[in-house]
C-alpha cells in the first residue's frame, strides 16, 4: 500500500487546488501585498456593482488557495457595504475530473458551508484561475448544496490557458504565463501575502 501522491506533483492536476505554497521557492513576485489589497478592494466594489443587494451575496472560497483571498474580499465587502456576507469554504477534490475519471487520490480537505446557497448569489473565490477545471468542479459542488440564484467567479490572478469554456467575472490581475510556469499565492516571512511566478 502506498500513500497517495499530492495533487501539486502532477502536471494534469487542476493548478489551483492546494496552492498556498509553504516551501520557500525562488520566484518572481508579480503581485505584492499592497497590490493584493488594492485588487481585492476593487473587486469588492465590482461585486457590489454587479449584485446590488448585498444581503444576497455569499462568498465561497475554493480550498485552499481561495481562502485568504475570500477573507480579504469579505473584509472589504463588510467595510464598503456595512454588513458581513456569509462565507463558506469548498474543497473540490472529490469533484475533480482527474479524481473521478483517472483515479488520482489527493487527500481531501474539509468543506464548510454554514449557510444555504439556495437563492444566494454565490461568488466562488480563487487565488489563481488557470485551466478552468477547478472552477468547473466547484460549480458542480455548489449545486450539490442547493440552487443558487447565480454563480460568479472572482480570482486574484487569471493566467489564461483555459481547457474548458469557463470565464471569470472579477479579476485582480491578468497575467500572461507559459503553461510550464507555476503561479502561487504564498505568505512571505512577514506574514503578508504575495503572488509569485515560480
Amino acid at each position, binding site marked *: *500500500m*502506498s500513500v497517495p501522491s499530492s495533487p501539486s506533483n502532477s502536471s494534469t492536476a487542476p493548478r489551483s487546488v492546494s496552492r498556498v505554497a509553504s516551501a520557500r521557492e525562488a520566484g518572481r513576485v508579480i503581485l505584492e501585498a499592497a497590490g493584493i489589497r488594492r485588487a481585492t478592494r476593487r473587486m469588492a466594489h465590482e461585486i457590489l456593482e454587479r449584485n446590488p443587494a448585498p444581503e444576497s451575496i455569499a462568498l465561497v472560497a475554493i480550498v485552499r488557495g481561495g481562502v485568504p483571498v475570500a477573507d480579504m474580499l469579505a473584509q472589504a465587502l463588510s467595510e464598503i457595504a456595512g454588513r458581513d456576507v456569509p462565507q463558506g469554504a469548498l474543497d473540490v477534490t*472529490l469533484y475533480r475530473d482527474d479524481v473521478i475519471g483517472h*483515479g*488520482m487520490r489527493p*487527500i481531501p*480537505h474539509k468543506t464548510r458551508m454554514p449557510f444555504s446557497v439556495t437563492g444566494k448569489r454565490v461568488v466562488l473565490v480563487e487565488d489563481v484561475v488557470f485551466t478552468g477545471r477547478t472552477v468547473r468542479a466547484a460549480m458542480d459542488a455548489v449545486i*450539490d448544496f442547493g440552487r443558487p440564484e447565480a454563480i460568479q467567479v472572482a480570482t486574484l490572478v487569471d493566467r489564461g490557458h483555459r481547457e474548458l469554456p469557463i470565464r471569470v467575472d472579477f479579476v485582480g490581475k491578468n497575467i500572461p504565463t507559459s503553461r510550464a510556469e507555476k503561479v502561487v499565492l504564498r505568505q512571505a516571512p512577514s506574514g503578508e501575502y504575495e503572488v509569485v511566478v515560480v
Partner: protein
Amino acid sequence: MKHLLGIEGMQPEEIVTVLDTADAMLEISQREIKRVPTLRGRTVINVFLEPSTRTRVSFEIAAKRLSADAVNVSAAGSSLAKAETLADMVQNLAAMNADVLIVRDRTAGVPRMLAERVHVPVINAGDGQHEHPTQALLDAFTVRQSLGSLEGRVVAIIGDIAHSRVARSDIYAFTKLGAEVRVAAPATMMPPGIELLGVKPCESMAEALAGADVIVMLRIQQERLDGPLFPGVREYARTFGLTQEKLTLASPDAIVLHPGPLNRGVEIATEVADAEPSRILDQVTNGVAVRMAVLYLVTGAE
C-alpha cells in the same frame, strides 16, 4: 493503498492518511444531499458470509455516498449453498468487473486468500478472530476527534481479548499511533503472549482503568455467555462490566467506546452506554466516513 486486509501491515502514516481523508468525508453525511460523484460508475460488492447489520449497512452507505453502485451478497441464498467454493464465487463476482470486494467471513485469512486470487481491491470487513481493520480505524478516528491525538494516551481494552478481532486491530492501530495500551480480561479470555503486541496485560479491570483516557469495552459474544470460559453473566458484569462506579477510576475526561452490538448490563451498564463519556453512536457515524475514506483510497490508480 491496494487492499485493506489488516492494520498489522499498515505504516502509521498510512493510518493517518485514512483518518485525514475521513475528516473530509464526515461533512458529506451532514449535507441535505448526502452524495459526491467521486466513485461514479464504480461497483462495490459486499460479500458478507457472517451476520452483520452495522458493518454491512455502513459499507453500503459509504459506497452510495460516493456514488458507487453497491451490491450485497450474503451466505444464505448465494451459490455457496450449492457448494461452490468461496474462491470460485469471488472470482465470478470479480469477472463481472467489480471494482472493490468487501469481505466478511468467519475464517481468519479469507480476505487475504481472496486478494491473492482476484485483481480487485479487497477490504477485510472482519475475518474470524483475526482482524477488523475498519473498526480499528473508526475507533482511532473517534479518539482523535474527541481527544485530538492518540500520542501518549492511555487506552484500556476490556473483555474477551482472546477471541476479539476488534481487540487485535485496535491494539495494532492504537500502538502504531503512539498510545499506551492496557488489556484486561478474565484469565480464560486473555491470550498467552499478548504482551508481544506491545500492550500491558492487567490483573484486574481496576488496574487497566486507572487514569485511562480511552476505554474500549468489547462485546461478550452471546455464544460464549453460557460456555466454559466464565462462570456467568452476573459474575462477568460484576468483575469486567463497565459501571458508573468503575468509570470513576479512569481519567475525568475519559471516553468510552464499544464496537456494538451492546449487551446492556453485561459488559456495559446502560447508564454508562447512554451517558456523556460514551462515544458509541459517534463511532457509528464516523464509521461511514472512515469507510468512505477507505473506498476512496483503495480505488486509486497505482
